[in-house]
């Protein structure tokens, strides 16, 4: 019986679960489909309500993963098949070719500087704001800090030739670039699986009345994170086309609690994300007029209500009423809503509108469910075995859920959920480990 666990997904949930399981003395395979672990949390600037820098609390854990003797990291890899083998599982993992030998790559970045497509490819890590090359590391704190060729963009991969000479190859002193790499299939055996594949941000273009994709100054909350982040495309300045907005409108519940999108649930994080963004906007542009359009503010967590109070005291105006339409007048955007507290339709001008997008299941969620034999809840996330008593277990023995794959969560709840999934995994691995018993202690009677 193998004393190994397989964790699918290397965001904060998968990272935390892997670390706890490995710290308990069991071996972990951590599979991440992107070139680096870190997930959505790595894209965030500050975290609410304490305003800790997200990277500062995440990066040490990413480094811990890479250094842990009991964690085997399989990045840029996907689980493509899982078979039950008695009480354990055999999983086949596809390791996609990076076209970079990670044993040689030093992460110096000379290749990306030389790449003919440098500065030409929409940077997904920066939520489409800012450009990168066809060979890239998603962000400077990536683990592993190794370059990867984007096979959908690289001219050599897509067309077979790239100019007269391969400039990236020439630039790489370590001779790490290797276009002959092929995908590799490996098999791992594990007695437990933790699914931690996370969520996707809601696609704001599905709410056409809000003008996302029409107006460059209508952006999503994820894009605001990148603008606000010191490592983002504007080095932390709130700028659009090089200009500071003077009037900023935040729109709540975009793609959540909404039958028109089929997402009936509350995404749980957006109220506080918006409160945080409103705070950051005020902090960075003191004179800015900041308005938050909401229907109900859900500030239910530890320190959340207090943060909501603080943001209003900082001069952020909360106007009750969903935004119904965004259009342009002159060089300003117009945000149309009803101020439901006075019962009057309003037009609010804005230089920037930030859409508080909800959390939705990733398309891969159903693939993972199919591989593992799991079920969806009605909201499309994966179903836990019991909504109260078994929040990390699933209908399949030995398979556990961690984080937003089970439903929207903020970071503290994700970490707690991941730790619970790790505990459940450890219990199972422990029960199957019969070759040693821990020394028990007995009650010693002190009074006579």
């Amino acid at each position, binding site marked *: 019986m193998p004393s190994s666990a397989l964790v699918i997904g290397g965001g904060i949930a998968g990272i935390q679960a892997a670390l706890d399981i490995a710290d308990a003395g069991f071996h972990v395979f951590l599979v991440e489909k992107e070139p680096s672990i870190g997930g959505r949390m790595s894209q965030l600037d500050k975290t609410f309500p304490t305003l800790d820098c997200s990277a500062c609390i995440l990066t040490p854990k990413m480094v811990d993963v890479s250094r842990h003797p009991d964690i085997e990291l399989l990045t840029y890899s996907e689980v493509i098949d899982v078979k039950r083998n008695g009480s354990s599982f055999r999983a086949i993992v596809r390791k996609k070719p990076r076209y970079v030998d990670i044993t040689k790559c030093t992460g110096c970045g000379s290749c990306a500087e030389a790449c003919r497509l440098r500065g030409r490819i929409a940077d997904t890590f920066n939520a489409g704001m800012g450009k990168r090359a066809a060979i890239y590391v998603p962000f400077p704190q990536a683990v592993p800090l190794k370059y990867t060729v984007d096979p959908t963009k690289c001219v050599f991969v897509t067309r077979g030739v790239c100019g007269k000479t391969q400039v990236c190859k020439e630039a790489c002193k370590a001779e790490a670039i290797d276009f002959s790499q092929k995908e590799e299939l490996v098999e791992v055996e594990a007695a437990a699986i933790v699914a931690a594949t996370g969520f996707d941000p809601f696609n704001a273009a599905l709410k056409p009345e809000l003008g996302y994709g029409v107006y460059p100054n209508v952006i999503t909350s994820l894009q605001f994170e990148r603008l606000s982040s010191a490592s983002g495309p504007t080095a932390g300045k709130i700028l659009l086309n090089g200009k500071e907005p003077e009037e900023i409108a935040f729109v709540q519940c975009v793609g959540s609690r909404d*039958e028109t999108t089929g997402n009936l649930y509350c995404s749980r994080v957006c109220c506080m994300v918006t409160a945080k963004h409103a705070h950051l906007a005020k902090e960075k542009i003191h004179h800015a007029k900041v308005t938050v359009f909401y*229907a109900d503010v859900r500030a239910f967590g530890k320190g959340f209500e207090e943060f909501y109070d603080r943001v209003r005291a900082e001069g952020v105006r909360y106007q009750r*009423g969903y935004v*119904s*339409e965004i*259009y342009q007048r002159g060089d300003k955007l117009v945000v149309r809503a*009803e101020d439901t507290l006075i*019962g009057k339709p309003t*037009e609010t001008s804005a230089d920037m509108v930030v859409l508080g997008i909800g959390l939705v299941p990733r398309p891969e969620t159903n693939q993972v469910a199919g591989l593992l034999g799991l079920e969806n809840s009605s909201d499309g996330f994966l179903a836990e075995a019991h909504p109260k008593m078994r929040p990390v277990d699933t209908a399949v023995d030995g398979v556990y859920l961690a984080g937003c794959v089970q439903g929207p969560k903020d970071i503290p709840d994700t970490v707690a959920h991941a730790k619970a999934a790790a505990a459940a995994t450890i219990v199972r691995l422990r029960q199957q480990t019969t070759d040693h018993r821990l020394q028990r202690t007995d009650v010693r009677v002190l009074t006579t």
Partner: protein
Amino acid sequence: MIDTEALVEQFGLTACIQCGKCTGGCPVSPKSALNPRALVYQMLRGEGFELVSREELWDCTTCSTCGLRCPKGVKAVDLIIGLRGQWIESGKIPTTLRAPLTATLNQGNPLVLPREDRSLWADGLNVKNVAEGADVAMFVCCENAYDPRVQPMPRALVNLLRAAQVDFGTLGLEEQCCGSEIRRLGESGLYEYLRDDNLDKFRQAGIQKMVTTSPHCMNVFKNEYAGAGFTVEHYTQMLARLIAEGKIKFSKRMETVVTYQDPCFLGKQNGIYDEPRAVLKSIPGVKFVDMDRSRERSVCCEGGGGRMWLEGTNNKVRLANDRVAQALETGAKVLATACPFCFLTLSDAVIATGHENDLRVMDILQIANEAL
């Protein structure tokens, strides 16, 4: 007093979270006391709701933006129609509505014109009756049939269908009002009579496929005539297809800039945004530009929901006038639309704003026909 509890149940109003998305998107709420969210709330509160002095209920254009954007599936527009129904039932019918409603019952049209004159629009065209056997029934909106300003549209459609060698006919004098706006005025009894009578006539004529000149007729047939048993298209859908199949070819050029008003009943309510644009773009020489507020963000012309016969509580502000200004901003010389109501409201607005020489309102049918 209104039985609010019954309305809450009938329209599922308990789903409402009072978010205001409906009122925030309502095109008339900024110029009227009409507030769909507040109406829903007043039903939920249930403390005696009186229709007296709620004239704003007649301001609603039934564009349906409120219901389409509601995150909870509440259709405030249906509540408004329900409240109008109670108003009508109480017998206090707004004076300007009396003649159209009576004429619709007696003459089959709200324009208060004789039934025998229904086919005058087709004088000299020799359009056959669909009962003689035809692939497609062409249904002509009452406005198009009787109002000389919009009679050229069905004539143009006849021309275009003949050019494409489509086998079609009309219902002749059997054709009558589709009932769409009658239903929206709250006259549900008359609407149901028209619907049943029309369905009988359609069945007798053996109609399988229908094309309409107005999005309002198309919408009511497609979405509200239960068990219609035939397929219905708006003419923009049919033209776009005939053009794509090469069955309609344009020989004339139209060197001009054209923008387009999305009729609410075609665009927002039925998601038909691309076909009208495809027709316009296929016309040689046309440079097509959209207004900033277009497609899902288009603005109602204020012609729907019976507003053709009701001035509303505030006629100082007219959305059609704003629309003309927005069309001019694009640099367009032609403001195209695909609905007789839009055509009429926008044409009036061009005159009211003094832009007769700068902007020409045209139905897509006219544009396509001129380019044949």
